[in-house]
C-alpha cells in the first residue's frame, strides 16, 4: 500500500499545485508587464471570493450574477488602483512598491469582513461533493476542476502572450518601457490592462480556492504560497508558474504525508520556503526565468 499512498499524495499535490499556479500567475502577469511586485495577490483572491460569497449568501444572488458583480468590482478597482496608487510610484525603489501592495493587502483584510461579515462562507459550485473513486485512488472534484481551470487558463494565456497583438505589445512593454513608447505603444494603457487581467485571474483563483476550502480572511494566506511558486518557476515565465506550482504542491503533499507524523504538523507551510531559499541561493532567477539578475 506504500506506493498507493505515495501516488495519491503526488496526484493531490499536482492538482493543488495547479491551483496555486492559478494564484501565482496573477503575480507573474503584473511583474512581467509593469515590474511591480504585488504582495496583495492572495488578498485579491480573497476579496473576489468574499464578494461572490457575500452576494450569494447574504443577498441571495444567483451564482452568475455574484460572479459578474465580483468581476466588475475587481476590474474597476484595479483600474483605479493603477491610476491612483501605482502610476505615481513608477520609478520608485522596489521597497516602496512592495510596501504599497502590503498596505493594499491590509486594507483588503480589513474591508472584506467589515462589509460582508467575518464568518466562513461557502461558495457552492455546481459540481458533486463526493470524491471521484478511481481504482484505489480518491480525487476530490473541486481539485480536479481547479486543476482543469488552471491548465485551460494557462493555455489561453500562453496564446494571448504569444500570438495576440495586445499580448505581444505587453511583452514589449515588459522588456523596455522606453522602446515600446518609441514604437507607438501606449505603455500606460497596458499597465492598466495588466492590473485588470490580474484582477480577473484573482477572481478565478478566489472562486476555485473559495469553493475548495471556504471563504474567509484565511484565504489570503494563499498569497504567501505564491512566492515559492514564482521563485521556483522563474518570475517572468508562464510555463515556470505551472512547473513551480506543481513542484510546490507535490513537495507540500509529500512533506505533509511523511514528515508531519514525526514532528506534529505544520511542515506544509514550511518546506516550500526551505526549497525556495535553496533555489534562491543557487539559481535566483528560477527554473524558467530569464537569467537577468542585478548583481552587486
Amino acid at each position, binding site marked *: 500500500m506504500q506506493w498507493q499512498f505515495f501516488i495519491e499524495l503526488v496526484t493531490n499535490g499536482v492538482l493543488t499545485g495547479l491551483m496555486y499556479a492559478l494564484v501565482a500567475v496573477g503575480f507573474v502577469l503584473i511583474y512581467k508587464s509593469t515590474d511591480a*511586485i504585488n504582495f496583495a495577490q492572495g488578498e485579491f483572491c480573497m476579496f473576489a471570493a468574499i464578494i461572490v460569497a457575500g452576494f450569494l449568501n447574504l443577498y441571495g444572488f444567483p451564482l452568475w450574477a455574484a460572479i459578474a458583480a465580483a468581476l466588475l468590482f475587481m476590474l474597476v478597482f484595479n483600474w483605479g488602483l493603477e491610476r491612483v496608487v501605482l502610476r505615481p510610484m513608477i520609478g520608485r525603489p522596489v*521597497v516602496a512598491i*512592495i*510596501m504599497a501592495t502590503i*498596505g493594499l493587502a491590509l*486594507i483588503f483584510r480589513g474591508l472584506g469582513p467589515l462589509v460582508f461579515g467575518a464568518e466562513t462562507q461557502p461558495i457552492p459550485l455546481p459540481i458533486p461533493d463526493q470524491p471521484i473513486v478511481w481504482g484505489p485512488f480518491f480525487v476530490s472534484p473541486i481539485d480536479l476542476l481547479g486543476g482543469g481551470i488552471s491548465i485551460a487558463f494557462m493555455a489561453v494565456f500562453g496564446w494571448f502572450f504569444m500570438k495576440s497583438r495586445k499580448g505581444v505589445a505587453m511583452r514589449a512593454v515588459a522588456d523596455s518601457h522606453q522602446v515600446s513608447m518609441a514604437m507607438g505603444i501606449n505603455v500606460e494603457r497596458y499597465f492598466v490592462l495588466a492590473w485588470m487581467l490580474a484582477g480577473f485571474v484573482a477572481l478565478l483563483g478566489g472562486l476555485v480556492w473559495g469553493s475548495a476550502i471556504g471563504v474567509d480572511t484565511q484565504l489570503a494566506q494563499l498569497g504567501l504560497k505564491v512566492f515559492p511558486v514564482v521563485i521556483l518557476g522563474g518570475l517572468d515565465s508562464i510555463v515556470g508558474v505551472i512547473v513551480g506550482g506543481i513542484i510546490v504542491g507535490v513537495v507540500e503533499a509529500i512533506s505533509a504525508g511523511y514528515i508531519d507524523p514525526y514532528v506534529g504538523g505544520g511542515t506544509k507551510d*514550511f518546506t516550500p520556503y526551505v526549497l525556495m*531559499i535553496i533555489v534562491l541561493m543557487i539559481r535566483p532567477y528560477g527554473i524558467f526565468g530569464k537569467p537577468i539578475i542585478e548583481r*552587486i
Partner: protein
Amino acid sequence: MFHRESGYFKTSYKADMALYPLPIGKVAATGFVLLFLVVAPTVLDEYYLSIINIAAIAVVGALGLNILLGYTGQISIGHAAFMSVGAYTAANFAVHFDMPFWVTLPAGGLMAAAIGTLVGLPSLRVKGLYLAIATLAAQFIIEWVLNHTPLISGGVQASIEMPRPVFFGNVLNTQSELYFFILPVTIVAIIATMNLVRSRIGRAFVAIRDQDIAAEIIGINVYRYKLLAFAISSFYAGVTGVLYTYYFGIANYEAFQLPISIDYLAMCIIGGLGSVLGSIFGAVFITLLPIVIRVFMETVGVLFVDGVYLAQVIAQMRLILFGGLIIFFLVVEPEGLNKLWRNIRNYFRVWPFSY
C-alpha cells in the same frame, strides 16, 4: 541660545558632523530627557505610562529596522522573527541560568544579530524583491523552528514564562518601575543610532543605499557593510524582543508573527525612511493609532455598530487605516512624518519673513 540658523553656513567638516548643530538642539534634547525621566513618571498614571512603555519598546525596533531599510536600503520582512530570537534567548538565559537583565539584554541582541547576519547572507547575491522574499522565508522558517524545537521553546504551547527584571534587589513589577527599565534602553538606542549614522559606518550604509556600485568603487566593502547592517539591525530587533518579553512576562512566538514585521515596516515608512527622528515619530504614531481608534470607536462608533461586534470592527478599522496610511504616505509624502515636521520647522525658521 534659542536661535535657529537662517541658512547653511557650515565651513568645516566638524561643524557638519556635529551631533547638535545648534545650541538649541542640546537644550531641546536635555529638556526631553528631563521631561520623560522626571516629569512624566510623576505626573502620569500607570495607564499612560504603559502606553509610553510600549511606544518606547517600539522605538528601539523601528530604529533598528530603519538602519537597514532607510539607511542601507535593504528590505527585511522578517524582523519580527529576529525579535522572537532575542526573546527566546533572553527567556532561556533568565529561566535556566538565572541571569539578570543586563546579561539577557545583550545576549538576546547578539543572538538575534547572529541569526540576522545569516538571514542577510542572500543580500550578498540578490537584492530588492528577492531579498524581500528571502527574509519573508526567514520569518516562516524561524517561526516554525521555534515552534517545533522544545529545547528552545520548551513549556506549554512554545511559551516561556519570564521572571520580572530585578534591579539591585528590587523586582520591577509595576508600569512605573518598568518605565525606568525600558526608557533608558530606548534613550541609549536613540543616541547610539544618531552616532552610528554620522560615523564612517553610517555613511558607508548611505552610500550603499544610494548607489551600490559607486560605493564599491570608492572603496567600501559592500558585502561587509551589508552584513554589518543586517547584524546591527537585528541586534536592535533582538533587544526589542527582550524588552517585550520582560514587559509582557512571557516569551511566545505568536507575539512575533508576520503582521508585527509589517507593523515595523509601516513605522519606518510612515515615520520617514533614513531618519532617527522619523523612526521615533513612526513608532509612536503606530503605537497610538490602535488606541486612538479604540477610544474613538468606543465613544462615537457605538452609535453605529452593535456592541457585540465592536472589538471585531475595531480590529478591521485598524487594518484599513493602517494600509491606507501606508499607501497615503508612500504616494503623497514618501519622506513621512519627519518631512512634515521639517516643513513646519522650515516655515518657522524664517518666520515672519518667509520670502
